[in-house]
């Protein structure tokens, strides 16, 4: 059999076509996983979502009624985590990017921060349990949970903020300093404003992460079932709280009557999934818009 140049080219294009089809198919399958999860949870959960579901207390061992306290608890935990971590994250990032220089130990810190972003969340739970619950004596409480989540998202926030700061062109800093601005002045009036969109994107991603985390609050903050909301602020902060992700977990695995309320379970899962997807999608869309608008 002859193998002329034409055949070689033909065989090659066939190989390419087969390979590309396989790769595309495999990718499509992985992207379908997202579709499958979103679709199933939506289809089975959407019937449970109603105004009452979101604003009423749970009833009869959580097999009826709403999930208001879980939503509220998740909101408090996430807000607490962000409030306690964001200032430290931004300040650390400013120091790393603007003041610390480029020595070997700064690079080491940077690698350390990156590494901590990959530490399993259950380890953060252990830390929170040992430090906030026991050593600081806060007990298993909303405050302990919020601080634990805060430490969990701190590396994420530092990384995002530092990246945003470092992407601000050096020309801006030079221009400000050459005009007689002090370094802080140049950071505050020129560098930081240019980095705000990037920092905000990081904060949104941090919120998305904190709101869905379960393992770190499992034994630092989570209550399985509370029939009423705490009365005072102190009480709210210092007592265990219900939260969306732990609620989903308890209902699906530990509540013997969970099967009586599968719809409500899917409803809660849909709510959490929807929140997280919206936050992430919002961050992605915002980031592309900011990048497109950027003029340097």
């Amino acid at each position: 059999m002859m193998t002329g140049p034409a055949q070689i080219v033909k065989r090659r294009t066939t190989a390419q076509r087969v390979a590309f089809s396989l790769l595309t198919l495999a990718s499509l399958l992985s992207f379908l996983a997202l579709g499958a999860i979103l679709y199933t949870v939506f289809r089975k959960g959407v019937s449970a979502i109603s105004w009452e579901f979101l604003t009423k207390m749970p009833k009869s061992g959580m097999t009826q009624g709403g999930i208001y306290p879980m939503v509220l608890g998740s909101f408090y935990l996430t807000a607490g985590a962000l409030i306690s971590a964001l200032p430290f994250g931004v300040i650390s990032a400013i120091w790393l990017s603007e003041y610390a220089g480029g020595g070997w130990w700064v690079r080491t810190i940077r690698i350390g921060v990156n590494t901590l972003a990959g530490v399993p969340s259950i380890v953060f739970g252990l830390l929170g349990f040992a430090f906030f619950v026991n050593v600081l004596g806060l007990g298993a409480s909303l405050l302990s949970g919020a601080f634990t989540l805060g430490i969990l998202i701190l590396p994420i926030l530092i990384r995002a903020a530092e990246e945003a700061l470092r992407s601000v062109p050096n020309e801006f800093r030079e221009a400000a300093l050459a005009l007689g601005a002090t370094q802080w002045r140049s950071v505050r009036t020129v560098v930081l404003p240019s980095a705000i969109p990037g920092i905000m994107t990081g904060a949104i991603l941090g919120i998305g992460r904190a709101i869905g985390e379960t393992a770190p609050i499992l034994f630092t903050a989570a209550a399985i079932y509370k029939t009423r909301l705490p009365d005072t602020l102190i009480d709210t902060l210092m007592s265990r709280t219900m939260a969306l992700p732990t609620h989903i977990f308890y209902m699906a695995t530990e509540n013997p009557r969970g099967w009586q309320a599968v719809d409500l379970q899917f409803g809660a899962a849909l709510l959490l999934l929807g929140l997280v997807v919206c936050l992430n999608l919002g961050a992605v869309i915002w980031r592309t818009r900011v990048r497109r608008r950027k003029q340097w």
Partner: protein
Amino acid sequence: MGIDLRSLSQRGGAGFLRVLRERWDRPVFAALASVSLIALGLILFFIFSEALPLFRTISLSNFFGGTWLPTVEPNRFGILPLLTGSGLVMVGALVVAIPFGLAAALFIAEIATGIIKDIAKSVLELLAGIPSVVYGFFGLMVLAPILQQIAHIPYRRTALLASLILGVMALPTIASLAEDALTAVPRSYREASLAMGASRWQTMWRVTFPAAFSGIIGAVILGMGRAIGETMAVLMLSGNAAQMVGSFLKPVRTLTATIALEMAETPFGSEHYHALFGIGAVLLIITLAMNWIAEALRGRLARKHGS
């Protein structure tokens, strides 16, 4: 009347106050940044310091022994079954995540263009952002019944079920990091190959992929780290039987799930408590090591191609 140049000298009369006004930033930022960075460093310290007391009563070989019986006398704190459980689930997850993740990476880096590429990247990002408890819930409510029916397994929760879901969870990590590695390969390599008449597929397979190889291995290792450290999904799906098993069709217990299951009922400062921190320390060492190896591999890739 002239120019007052006294302000040029740092030793002027009002020097101290001005220094205070203009130079406060560096020390203040350094101090506050140290606080948060030290707080992060405390994680390492705390996990290890809470694990150490265990070894006053238990030898290292007992800790890596074959029986985990923390609450029944005589207590045994051998984490081998948990290690094998974690390992088994991780291997299963990688079988799913590596081929699909690398396919997705190649698709995004080399095949897709324009809006398709942007959408595919966003899908990966969303997939990575889904909370693990939702993955666990989905696996339990949707995938478990299907799997049980297809494979005729007596158990609802098995290593297989956990592996499948964990594979989907590790996929975006592997895909997006491998895609970074592929994109980091200089254009000139590709252009040289294409200019010699190689097809896009040949270029991709023989030039780009090998050039990015160390970065791709790094991506896979980070995916492994993600799979080992994952808690909620495996807790909900793997069945949590703390026994040595070699089968995907049986329930297993992982390191992470053990901590999540037992920490709440453990008395503060007890042997069991320290043993759970021992597990945490093991987890920490594994994931840190994987992170560093992956980082080193990615760094090597960047140096090799001079970017």
